[in-house]
């Protein structure tokens, strides 16, 4: 198993595969997922490659499957996802698959077409039914309901005659002394979309100059449009007119408005008969439609059982042929040549997979895996598991580590939650976070199986181990800060006692009491673990906490940075880069230690030497004479004396402090030109020496040329690995001026960086202060209001206010503050920590793996 401290050792391999065995071998490698193939014919067009045909067939199969899937989803049939992972089928199975899909697709298309035709038929019949029913109403109205048996034409004529005769009321049958044909009005009946009615009416009126008579009625139930499947509302209309000219005009208008016209017999008896016929036909159609639907459902249910499986198979085949397209064809066409990056530790596994592939294909010639030397930088591959992958992702998103570079991930597993917890220190909030993280970790498998496409949830779930650790560490720092939702707990008994407090004094003070450790209030031994709970109620809490937390964050920050510099030592040792150790690592350590780590030491000296006292004899070690670390440090750099009060006798913490400080400062100062110049000068000298050596050698070489031919050959091969070994520096071809500029930038970055980065670690204090204050304010402004309600109503008030306080705590303190603390921690790791050693100039190892391909395919589908 590879270690996480460095990326895995990779090697470039050449792979010779027999044409028949290539497919099976690549399939086995895809299951393994440890090989990254290189494109050996990058200048060949995608359409000119060898297996284009197969890829196309796969595409076609995928299209059919997508069509099937769409139909299945339309019917709401659940797709069986057993999560099983079928092996890539043999190439000959592909034909079977193709045939199956073809058959299924055709069947489905046919069924769909039939269903559509049937539905159209059904729609027409329903419309006709509606027309017959509605027109009946029109006729009935016209006849005033008195004579239901009379035909409507007659009734209309009746009306006409009424109009002509002006007044004489005539019900029933008119006299038969005129030819009905003469007055016989024509009519058309049809169905039109309801929203078109007003325009249709106006158009009719205008085009026919008011000579037509339109009646319409709405169909209450919506009808289904067979082509789109939408529910549409329609109206029945009937138009009366006289003469052929009007008839053509009316028909044209109907056509223009996409109205469907239906024949409607005049005689009521005919109509009734027709209605009966229509009804029976609808009945028949319904049964046929039901059968069609059943058939379609059966086909889809059968397909739904296998569709996921088929998708996996087709995608695997496609991936294999895509990969085969990257290979080179041997001249004899008998074998395929591939080049691939392979982790050295997994060579055995790959050999085994290849052997399995050969056996499966029944080929006799084993594939040949050949290690090659290359000057190229191999890809970076870190063996991660579910726990470390989230931490690795934090650095991968900053920059993929260079090949075989020190990987900061293992240390980050501890430092990241710890720095986070310093900013997020509250036992209650930490516990909430830890419970959430623990729940995700414990329910890992069912939650992972759900495959939610909620992006925020996926981020949380991906970082579940980080969240759990952050929560646990925050609980620890919360105990140190003695904060539980901003309240302190007194577990071991406070180290402060009440003395000399009179009733008068207590009544006179309006705010909190100031704690002075120099008085008898302090029992002279400290609270055993973390912060004394009494500070919560004191007036000088913030002053005390600020000084404590600021020092703490600087101490932790400088240790963190020193650790980063130390990692750079191991990186250089690994790359055999002694120049970097002498010219960069040593002065860097000296600079950081002599200036900043010295400041940390001063803090500890101050903590150990000075104590609160009011005794005049011990005033030198009292709070009054304790020197300020910041002033001391500034004066050390400015080379000035620190002023002090006469009673304190000295501004020094220990004897000889000034001399030592001067030495430290000048030593650190000397490191700057050392960092700036030493490396370029050394490189320059080495180059000159090499040039001299080369000319000497060439002379020697020319002298012995006719003697021994093997000598130069041997020399060449022995020199190349040296060049590649020094690849860590990569200064081999750079001109000197660029090396100087590069080193200048590097030095300035480091020197200024160590100052600004030290200050940057103060964010640990700032955010922790902000968090503590915010949670205190929330308690005071919200929960306190519920707790101070008098009497029994307080219980109910508390019930409501607790819910408000709880949701505010989650949303503001845990989510928002947690996010901000997370981002600041990330920044401290990326900028302050990584800048000391991390080059991050590599590229990621992207193995050919079915797992990754299937994952990305299913994600792309859901989007």
């Amino acid at each position, binding site marked *: 198993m590879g270690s996480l401290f460095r990326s895995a050792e990779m090697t470039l391999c050449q792979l010779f595969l027999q044409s028949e065995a290539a497919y099976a071998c690549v399939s086995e490698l895809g299951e393994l997922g440890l090989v990254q193939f290189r494109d050996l014919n990058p200048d060949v067009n995608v359409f000119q490659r060898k297996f284009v045909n197969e890829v196309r067939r796969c595409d076609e199969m995928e299209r059919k499957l997508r069509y099937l899937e769409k139909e299945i989803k339309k019917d709401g049939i659940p797709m069986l996802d057993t999560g099983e992972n079928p092996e890539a089928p043999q190439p000959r199975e592909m034909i079977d698959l193709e045939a199956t899909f073809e058959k299924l697709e055709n069947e489905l298309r046919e069924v769909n077409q039939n269903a559509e035709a049937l539905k159209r038929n059904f729609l027409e019949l329903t419309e006709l039914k509606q027309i017959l029913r509605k027109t009946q109403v029109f006729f009935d109205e016209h006849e005033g309901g008195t004579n239901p048996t009379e035909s409507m034409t007659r009734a209309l004529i009746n009306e006409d005659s009424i109009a002509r005769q002006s007044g004489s009321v005539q019900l029933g049958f008119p006299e038969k002394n005129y030819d009905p044909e003469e007055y016989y009005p024509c009519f058309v009946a049809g169905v039109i979309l309801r929203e078109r009615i007003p325009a249709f009416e106006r158009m009719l009126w205008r085009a026919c100059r008011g000579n037509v008579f339109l009646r319409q009625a709405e169909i209450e139930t919506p009808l289904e449009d067979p082509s789109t499947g939408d529910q549409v509302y329609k109206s029945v209309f009937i138009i009366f007119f006289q003469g052929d000219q009007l008839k053509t005009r009316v028909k044209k208008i109907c056509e223009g408005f996409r109205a469907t016209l239906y024949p409607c017999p005049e005689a009521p008896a005919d109509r009734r008969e027709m209605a009966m016929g229509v009804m029976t036909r609808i009945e028949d159609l319904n049964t046929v439609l039901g059968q069609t639907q059943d058939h379609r459902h059966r086909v889809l249910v059968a397909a739904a059982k296998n569709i996921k499986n088929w998708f996996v198979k087709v995608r695997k085949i496609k991936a294999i042929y895509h990969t085969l397209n990257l290979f080179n064809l041997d001249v004899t066409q008998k074998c395929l040549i591939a080049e691939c990056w392979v982790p050295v530790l997994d060579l055995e596994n790959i050999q085994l997979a290849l052997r399995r592939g050969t056996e499966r294909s029944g080929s006799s010639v084993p594939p040949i895996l050949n290690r090659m030397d290359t000057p190229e930088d191999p890809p970076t591959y870190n063996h991660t598991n579910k726990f470390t992958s989230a931490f690795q992702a934090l650095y991968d998103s900053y920059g993929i580590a260079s090949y075989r570079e020190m990987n900061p991930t293992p240390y980050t597993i501890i430092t990241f939650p710890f720095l986070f917890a310093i900013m997020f220190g509250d036992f209650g909030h930490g516990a909430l976070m830890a419970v959430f993280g623990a729940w995700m970790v414990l329910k890992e498998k069912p939650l992972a199986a759900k495959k939610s496409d909620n992006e925020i949830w996926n981020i949380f779930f991906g970082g579940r181990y980080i969240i759990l650790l952050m929560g646990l560490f925050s609980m620890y720092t919360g105990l140190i800060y003695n904060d539980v939702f901003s309240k302190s707990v007194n577990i071991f008994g406070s180290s402060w006692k009440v003395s000399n407090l009179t009733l008068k004094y207590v009544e006179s003070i309006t705010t909190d009491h100031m704690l002075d450790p120099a008085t008898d209030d302090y029992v002279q031994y400290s609270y055993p673990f973390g912060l004394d709970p009494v500070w919560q*109620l004191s007036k000088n809490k913030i002053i005390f906490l600020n000084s404590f937390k600021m020092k703490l964050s600087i101490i932790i920050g400088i240790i963190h940075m020193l650790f980063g510099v130390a990692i750079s030592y191991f990186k250089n040792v690994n790359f055999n880069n002694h120049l970097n150790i002498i010219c960069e690592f040593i002065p860097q350590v000296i600079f950081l230690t002599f200036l900043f780590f010295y400041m940390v030491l001063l803090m500890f000296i101050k903590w150990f030497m000075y104590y609160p006292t009011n005794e005049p004899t011990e005033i030198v070690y009292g709070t009054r004479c304790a020197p300020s670390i910041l002033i001391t440090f500034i004066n050390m750099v400015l080379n000035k004396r620190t002023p002090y009060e006469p009673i304190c006798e000295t501004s020094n913490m220990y004897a000889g402090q000034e001399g030592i400080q001067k030495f430290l400062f000048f030593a650190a100062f000397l490191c700057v030109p050392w960092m700036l110049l030493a490396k370029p000068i050394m490189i320059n000298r080495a180059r000159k020496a090499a040039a001299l050596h080369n000319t000497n050698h060439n002379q020697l070489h020319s002298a012995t040329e006719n003697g021994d031919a093997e000598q130069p050959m041997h020399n060449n091969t022995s020199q190349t690995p040296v060049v590649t070994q020094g690849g860590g520096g990569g200064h081999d071809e750079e001109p000197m001026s660029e090396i100087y500029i590069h080193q200048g930038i590097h030095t300035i970055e480091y020197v200024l960086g160590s100052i600004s980065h030290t200050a940057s670690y103060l964010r640990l204090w700032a955010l922790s202060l902000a968090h503590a204050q915010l949670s205190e304010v929330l308690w005071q402004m919200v929960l306190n209001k519920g707790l101070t309600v008098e009497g029994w109503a307080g219980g109910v008030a*508390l019930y409501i206010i607790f819910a408000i306080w709880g949701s505010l705590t989650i949303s503001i303190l845990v989510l928002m503050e947690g996010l901000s603390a997370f981002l600041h921690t990330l920044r401290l790791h990326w900028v302050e920590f990584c800048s000391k050693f991390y080059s991050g100039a590599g590229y990621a190892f992207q193995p050919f793996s079915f797992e990754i391909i299937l994952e990305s395919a299913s994600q792309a589908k859901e989007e």
Partner: protein
Amino acid sequence: MAICGPKLSLCGLIISAWGIIQLALMGVFYWIEAVALAEDIPEIGEYHSLSDFYSKMTNGYQQNAINCWIAALLYLITMALSAHQFWLNNRSSLSV
């Protein structure tokens, strides 16, 4: 009968679990008269003597302890309701 949706019932479940634990503990702390919670009891206006002040403080502490337990009890009811709703929602989503 499902009144709340799945999300609301889950939310009620979580907050009532939290409420029961925290409020029960706070009730205990009030009962033992924790100094840290001295600011979180109803204000005492007038008092005649020191013993009167102490007795009023004790009263306030005890009242608040009981109030906390009442609220915890209310959350227990809320939890039972939400759990029932949650169960109903889960069952109905399974049956569909």
